[in-house]
């Protein structure tokens, strides 16, 4: 994972915290140039900072969580894959004329086991983000993902997917190449696969573009990740006729791990390091790795037909309605 030498990117609600941290740095610097012992004072301030961080991050609003989920330094699919796996070979192409850089995949070895890993890939900087289309996959991306999943199925490898996209790409070319068809095909075919499928929302899960690699036996989410039916911005523009109401929409749409657990959609929430996964990426990767290995272990006990039946029933029961008799 990239060393965090770069200047930290601060979110607006982290401001009181950053002020405190700047003061700690200033005192440290002063102490270096004098004989005064400030260690006690620094210790006290640091404990206050940690307490403040705890307070801020335990009470994040859905809109603030989106900011954490979209944090430019948040670990990406390739960051996790490269950190967690002992071996990794990225593979390319949908065999239909394209190789989408916004959706990456390949074969990895993790915990002594071969598996196919794939996911949306956001850029690590502006230039990379342009190349990766900000993690918005094209039809070719979904077709590449399906091709790799079919490969996994043929060779009996578990499938691990990482969801991190604002949504599937909306553009002329995407429509022309059948964005709807590409996603739909994955939704159906993922039910037919006879190997364990584990899906994790590592950042933001945006609508059909997320679901297109999100039909699995287990759905996991990092604590500050979000998963939405439509972006709060679009939802606000349509339902409130006011894009400025995005915060309100984020609240109403129920997009956090806690909400989705209550709705019977999410199976497991992965705790993040204090202040978000980007503050301690290695720790986040370790949490994810353990959870993946545990789940693969459990799911591997199931016969292929059982696995398919469980997957079907998992989705079959999602939905809330009344039935008068």
């Amino acid at each position: 994972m990239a060393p965090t030498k770069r200047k930290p990117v601060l979110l607006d609600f982290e401001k009181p915290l950053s002020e405190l941290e700047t003061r700690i740095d200033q005192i440290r610097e002063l102490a270096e140039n004098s004989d005064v012992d400030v260690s006690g004072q620094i210790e006290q301030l640091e404990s206050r900072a940690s307490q403040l961080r705890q307070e801020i991050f335990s009470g994040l609003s859905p809109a603030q969580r989106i900011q954490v989920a979209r944090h430019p330094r948040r670990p990406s699919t390739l960051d996790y894959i490269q950190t967690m796996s002992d071996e990794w070979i990225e593979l390319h192409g949908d065999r239909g004329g394209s190789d989408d850089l916004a959706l990456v995949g390949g074969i990895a070895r993790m915990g002594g086991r071969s598996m196919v890993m794939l996911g949306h890939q956001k850029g690590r900087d502006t230039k990379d983000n342009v190349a990766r289309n900000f993690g918005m996959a094209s039809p070719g991306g979904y077709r590449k993902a399906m091709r790799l999943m079919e490969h996994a199925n043929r060779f009996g490898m578990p499938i691990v997917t990482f969801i991190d996209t604002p949504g599937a790409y909306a553009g002329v070319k995407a429509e022309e190449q059948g964005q709807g068809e590409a996603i739909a095909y994955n939704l159906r075919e993922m039910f037919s696969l006879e190997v364990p499928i584990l899906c994790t929302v590592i950042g933001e899960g945006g609508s059909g573009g997320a679901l297109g690699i999100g039909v699995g036996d287990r759905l996991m989410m990092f604590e500050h990740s979000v998963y939405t039916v439509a972006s709060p911005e679009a939802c606000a523009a349509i339902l409130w006729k006011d894009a400025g109401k995005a915060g309100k929409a984020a609240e109403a749409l129920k997009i956090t791990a806690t909400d989705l657990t209550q709705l019977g959609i999410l199976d497991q929430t992965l705790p993040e390091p204090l202040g978000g996964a980007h503050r301690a990426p290695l720790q986040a990767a370790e949490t994810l790795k353990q959870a993946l290995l545990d789940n693969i272990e459990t799911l591997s006990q199931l016969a292929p037909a059982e696995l398919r039946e469980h997957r079907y029933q998992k989705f079959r029961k999602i939905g809330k309605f009344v039935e008068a008799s």
Partner: protein
Amino acid sequence: MSLLDWFANRRKAEPTNQAQPERDISDGLWTKCDACGVMTYTKDLRANQMVCLECGHHMRVFSEERIEQLMDADTWIPLNEQVSPIDPLEFRDRKAYSDRIRDTQAKTGLTDSIQTGIGQIDGEPAAVAVMDFRFMGGSMGSVVGEKLTRLIEKATAERLPVLVFCASGGARMQEGMLSLMQMAKISGALERHRDAKLLYIPVLTHPTTGGVTASFAMLGDLIVAEPKAMIAFAGRRVIEQTLREKLPDDFQTAEYLVQHGFVDLIVPRTQMKATLAQLIRLHQLPSAKVSASTGAASLNGAGATRDTASSSAS
């Protein structure tokens, strides 16, 4: 609400249904075509299935009308009519979702944006779903997901083809992620139907967009569309905003999708019933034909109860 109350409400609401503002010119006797502007005697227009006699423009039809156009008389057996939406997120935008449901139900006489059932098309038994754009823009929430899934499961068990008339603005935002998950749930049911080697044909009508396009609308063994229907994953406006350029006029029309290989056939509404029946027949094995005609005979029996009729359709 009991089923009887619901029927009573629906009957009460019926007069409003017939007075569609977009079609109604004062007394409703005459209807103006949205495309060519020509006024047609409404009775003649209805007889032509709301296809303009002058220019062939397909005006919007709603679920009851569609079922009437498609199904053989007295063969339609509606299913799961008692499945009704609730407000699981306590969602409120400019209006509370629970109020929106109640008001829309009262206005349209529908429980939600889809009707499902089993019946015959030119003597061919089929499981049919018809979406209704009047109900919150045909949006897909838990009820659409549940009713479609039950219909597909029943069709798989009884070895029936499935036809779904799509008309939808996409996932229903007021039910949040529950709506998105219906895309997967329905696709899962379609996977089992397909695995049983049964025929599925979605019919894309104006408009078919968003989450519906990214799931069951595009999963047909064959895909049929009505002329000029708008079929899209992302809306035209969204794309125009991102790209800041004008899009071609035929962008995202049924014809455009045929050109790009995503739709098999464009079928005018007046030929829809005959074409669908023909497609179903073309997929029957010689042995299956016998059981289908047996089913047809008993379904036509005047005294057939709901249970016996649906089991004889298997």
